[in-house]
């Protein structure tokens, strides 16, 4: 078991997500950055969907009751005060204290433990749902996280195997136009793809609220309520897009000008308040290819330490 000595600003448990209940109003939740979450799990020999911690900006301090194999991705970490090498799994002896954070270069980091966190599942998932209040609550001082003591060889991330994160490389995030392009003026998509949109502080796991040139509606009225997806750029009447992230509500009533390629969702989930985001329109096929290529690359991205 793991004892929480300090929780960090917002640290939650996330597995792949709570699938199969959207039609009765239950959000999926799951990691805001699925790629870092999967890499952290692979570093400790877990399935991609194993339950791990997601920290936001500042990280938790944890005491391990038993020896464990652990990986931290997207944040710094120290074991009993000694800094740990980045992007690799490591052993934690029984009784040791792991201090995680701050997150960097993005806004979120992940802590995976070999065997996964064994908090009780709710509706088949161990994910904390911050919108609907399902699953384990965000970490608090004194909380106990059940964890197994699974042995696992040490591993490291081979970043060269993966495409560079586009936002950090200065490249635009890929957007598949629609499904509600007919609700906007013809200029709206062009505006979205030619200006920078800044992530505002009013952003959370539900969505990143963006600030930039307004996207104008081409018709009056209200969109009939429709199912939503992570990555959707939904546009309220004020024209400022909201980029939906992992814990978005399953339905919504604002038209969607475009949906982020799944391969670029991790970059969106890691955007910090103040970060400028740029967008480029791509076809659905191009977005699907990028997703397939990224998942294929993931298979070669975690290697034994040798």
């Amino acid at each position, binding site marked *: 078991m793991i004892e929480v000595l300090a929780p960090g600003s917002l640290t939650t448990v996330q597995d792949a997500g709570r699938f199969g209940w959207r039609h009765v109003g239950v959000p999926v939740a799951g990691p805001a950055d699925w790629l870092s979450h999967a890499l952290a799990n692979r570093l400790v020999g877990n399935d991609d969907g194993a339950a791990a911690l997601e920290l936001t900006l500042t990280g938790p301090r944890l005491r391990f009751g038993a020896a464990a194999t652990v990986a931290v991705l997207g944040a710094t970490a120290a074991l009993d005060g000694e800094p740990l090498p980045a992007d690799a799994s490591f052993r934690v002896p029984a009784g040791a204290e792991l201090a995680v954070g701050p997150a960097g270069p993005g806004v979120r980091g992940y802590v995976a433990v070999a065997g996964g966190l064994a908090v009780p599942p709710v509706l088949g998932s161990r994910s904390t749902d911050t919108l609907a209040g399902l699953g384990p609550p965000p970490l608090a001082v004194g909380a106990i996280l059940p964890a197994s003591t699974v042995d696992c060889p040490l591993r490291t991330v081979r970043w060269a195997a993966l495409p560079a994160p586009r936002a950090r490389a200065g490249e635009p995030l890929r957007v598949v136009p629609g*499904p509600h392009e007919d609700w906007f003026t013809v200029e709206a998509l062009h505006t979205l793809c030619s200006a920078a949109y800044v992530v505002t502080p009013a952003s959370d796991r539900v969505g990143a609220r963006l600030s930039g040139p307004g996207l104008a509606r081409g018709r009056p009225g209200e969109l009939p309520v429709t199912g939503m997806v992570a990555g959707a750029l939904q546009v309220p009447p004020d024209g400022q897009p909201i980029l939906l992230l992992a814990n978005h509500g399953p339905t919504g009533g604002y038209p969607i000008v475009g*949906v982020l390629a799944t391969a670029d969702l991790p970059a969106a989930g890691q955007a910090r308040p103040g970060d400028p985001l740029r967008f480029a329109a791509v076809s659905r096929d191009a977005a699907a290819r990028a997703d397939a290529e990224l998942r294929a690359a993931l298979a070669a991205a975690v290697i034994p330490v040798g």
Partner: protein
Amino acid sequence: MLGDEISLRYVGDRAVLLETDGAAAAHQVRSRLERARPDGVVESVVGAAGLLVLLDPARCDLAALRRAAATPSTTDGARPVTVHIPVDYDGADLAEVAELSGLTIEQVVARHAVPTYTVAFLGFAPGFGYLSGLDPALRVARRDSPRQRVPAGSVAIAGEYAAVYPRDTPGGWRLLGRTDVAMFDPDQDPPALLAPGTPVRFVPC
């Protein structure tokens, strides 16, 4: 209700929207997919004008999906068991709704309790069903300023819909009464009392 060809819109690289004429038709398409189980369908969400289908693109054949969505099924027209919800009509907005609709409080209660509603779709919170079938005389706008806290079990109306709040949340709907019925409990099977297509009646008590 549906022709051979269902209009399909891409929603990013892992979902499509099958457009339908209303929520009932979207629910019918969902039932057909539940039965036919075409490859690569992860889950689906009923909306007011279509069914959002979440896909695993590596396993999904869109032509097969469209065929399954358009193929009549034995589930078409099936009527699930009606859910009866006992209501104490003592809501904070009863008088205001009466004034806005030009009815007496007794008439508001009577008109709210007459119809058999149908769950159009769910959203906003787990177990929160948007019930269609509201008497047009009771169509009132949401409150100008939402309440910080609407108690769980509140029976409410807004626009063309009626609903029951499954848990304490902020909310802007007009409150007519309350019920003790649990609308959502993750430890129960099924966790949500309502699903798209469920018939609902309110019973004054």
